[in-house]
């Protein structure tokens, strides 16, 4: 294989790995060796050796420089290593395979490192919640799930605390928010899909705008509207449910609108052509077809709302003992409890916060799995798969 910078002669064997390098210099019809199909191969040993070799060479070089100059910053070492590695690897690939292959290899390195930079920290978050939270939450198994936080102190053992009151609060508040927003959201979504007028566009626009509203807006709104006028009795589970509803209403409406919009128009038209009145078409054809997708969308909305902290900051009150009645007295909430524990934050209290985080993650993941099952269990595998497929089909 030639290593010179002059015009390269085509290699006698197909280039390993990826098709690259300069185009063959042969003319038309000259069926020669290089016209053989250049198969994309899977990773060949040479590729791996070039990669590992460059990495090791760069590490050795940087290590040497750092030892000679007496520097010992780990972060600096890593950054310098990465830069040196990229340089060495680039030069190596350029000399061996040409510029195009070099670009391709470097891009591959960049894309895999980018993906690792996303997946490692995100994995670390879940890893730490499990490592630190699971021993707390599962120590005396059901205990943490029904005990309350009445005795939580900096010196108290795991057996003294639990997230029971917060679980009750979250379930009741999210349940109330669900009851208040889902019927309204579904009706509105149905209307928006069917209507084209100014009014429908206005509603659609406002719903869109509120989907992106900062969560703190909902907190401030409910505080001023509901909590502050009632003075000491203002904070309650219901106030928290109201604040969550402000967040949830646009989310549910928008998601339902998208799911209903992908119900095939032919189904609707077939029913109308058979003489069915519009209300029956919607209730008996459109909504049942979208049922799986709707459940997925609604459950994902619930999962998102259950983890919201900001809206309930000024509304729930954050009580450490059981209060089953959401309409009177302050109530607790899982994310709010995490926040309060972090703020008190010393010693075992932070440990308890990890425990509650673990419970919250379990709840959210449970809802996520439920949403997936809801999307899959119905006939025809509708739901997300329907949404994706028809969205793709509509364009191609």
């Amino acid at each position: 294989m030639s290593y010179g910078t002059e015009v390269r002669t085509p290699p006698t064997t197909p280039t390993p790995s990826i098709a690259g390098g300069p185009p063959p210099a042969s003319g038309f019809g000259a069926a020669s060796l290089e016209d053989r199909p250049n198969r994309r191969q899977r990773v060949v040993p040479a590729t791996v050796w070039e990669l590992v070799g460059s990495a090791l060479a760069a590490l050795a070089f940087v290590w040497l420089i750092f030892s000679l100059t007496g520097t010992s910053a780990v972060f600096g070492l890593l950054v310098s290593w990465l830069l040196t590695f990229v340089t060495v690897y680039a030069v190596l690939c350029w000399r061996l395979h040409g510029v195009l292959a070099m670009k391709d290899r470097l891009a591959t390195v960049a894309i895999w490192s980018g993906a690792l930079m996303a997946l490692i920290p995100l994995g670390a978050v879940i890893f730490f919640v499990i490592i630190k939270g699971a021993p707390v939450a599962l120590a005396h198994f059901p205990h943490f799930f029904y005990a309350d936080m009445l005795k939580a102190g900096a010196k108290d053992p795991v057996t003294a605390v639990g997230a029971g009151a917060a679980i009750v609060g979250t379930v009741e508040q999210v349940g109330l928010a669900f009851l208040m927003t889902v019927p309204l959201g579904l009706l509105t979504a149905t209307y928006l899909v069917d209507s084209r007028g100014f009014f429908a566009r206005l509603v659609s626009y406002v719903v869109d705008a509120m989907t992106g509203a900062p969560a703190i807006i909902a907190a401030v709104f409910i505080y001023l509207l509901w909590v502050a006028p009632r003075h000491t009795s203002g904070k309650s589970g219901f106030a928290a449910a109201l604040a969550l509803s402000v967040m949830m209403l646009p989310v549910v409406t928008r998601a339902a609108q998208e799911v209903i919009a992908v119900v095939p128009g032919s189904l609707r038209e077939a029913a109308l052509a058979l003489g069915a009145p519009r209300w029956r078409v919607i209730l008996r054809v459109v909504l049942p077809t979208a049922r799986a997708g709707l459940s997925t969308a609604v459950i994902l909305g619930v999962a998102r709302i259950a983890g919201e902290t900001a809206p309930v900051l000024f509304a729930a009150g954050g009580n450490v003992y059981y209060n089953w009645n959401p309409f009177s007295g302050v109530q607790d909430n899982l994310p709010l409890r995490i926040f309060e524990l972090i703020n008190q934050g010393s010693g075992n209290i932070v440990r308890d916060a990890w425990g509650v985080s673990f419970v919250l993650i379990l709840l959210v993941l449970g809802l996520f799995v439920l949403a997936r099952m809801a999307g899959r269990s119905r006939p025809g595998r509708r739901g997300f798969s329907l949404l994706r497929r028809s969205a793709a089909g509509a364009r191609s």
Partner: protein
Amino acid sequence: MTITAPPVPERPALPEDQPIALHTKERGADLVFRRVLATSSAVVLFLLAATTLFLIVKGWPAIRAAGLHFFTDTVWSPDTHHFGVAPLLIGSVVVALVAVAVAVPISLSTALMINEYAPARLRPWLTSVVDILATIPSIVYGFWGLEIFSNLQIGPARWVAHYFGFVPFLRAPLNSGDYGKSIVATGLVCALTIIPIITSVSREVMAQAPRDACEAALGLGGTRWGMVTDVILPFSRYGVVGGILLGIGRGLGETMIVVLVLSTTNILTPAVLGPNGLGSIAKQITENFSDGSTIEKSALIMAALGLFATTLAVNAIAKLIVSRTGARI
């Protein structure tokens, strides 16, 4: 819309041959049903619009008291009518920008990795993982950022401040121990919540790049990277830009991470690494709202609305751009 039956001249017209009128005007049950739907829409519209209007009414006294200085003052002293909103608003925006600047290359790499580089068998799993990561509550990310990440990044932050301190943005007091809770640290943790969003939007858009064009690029002897730059990225650019703007919107609205991680002195300065830095609206509201005086509450509400308006503008541009691709977000 009227449809007339084709003429049938051969035989005398029978009653059933007469064209029937198609009613486009709704009657009876249909009308009632539509009224119910329209009413619910009106209720939704009222509730959502009332939220904003109510807050504008409640926040107006602060604007009236401070006039245009409201957005330019840099000192937070509500009782003397100095609502230094500028460091707060700029701080919120800078946190979002840092987050997006970090998240964009990482998210695009991840999206490309899932679509083009990872083995096909892993693809649905990786997609699900990204979706799950998007569902994790931000308070968990914030807690992790406070407990784990803010300590981890002190070393690198010092290193950067030591060697690149001549850049105004990166200047920081070297002997201070409080590198952990800077604007940059907060932005990096916020990036974690944005990465799944940008990844899933751009992955979906990139997956719609015409497969035959991709195969053609490869078939002509192009490299995989050539296929990405010449087919996939041009095809999906609007969707990607829209996803990025949605990410900025999410970063601007982020509350709990900022409240937990950020700990700065609310002053207007370009430095983003150290403990002396810009503040954040969400943090100011969380900490001072319930105990504040009426005029301070007004100021905080107006600040929140300023943030909302920024978010709204960014999202509107995002929707406009994305709608050109026809992708659903």
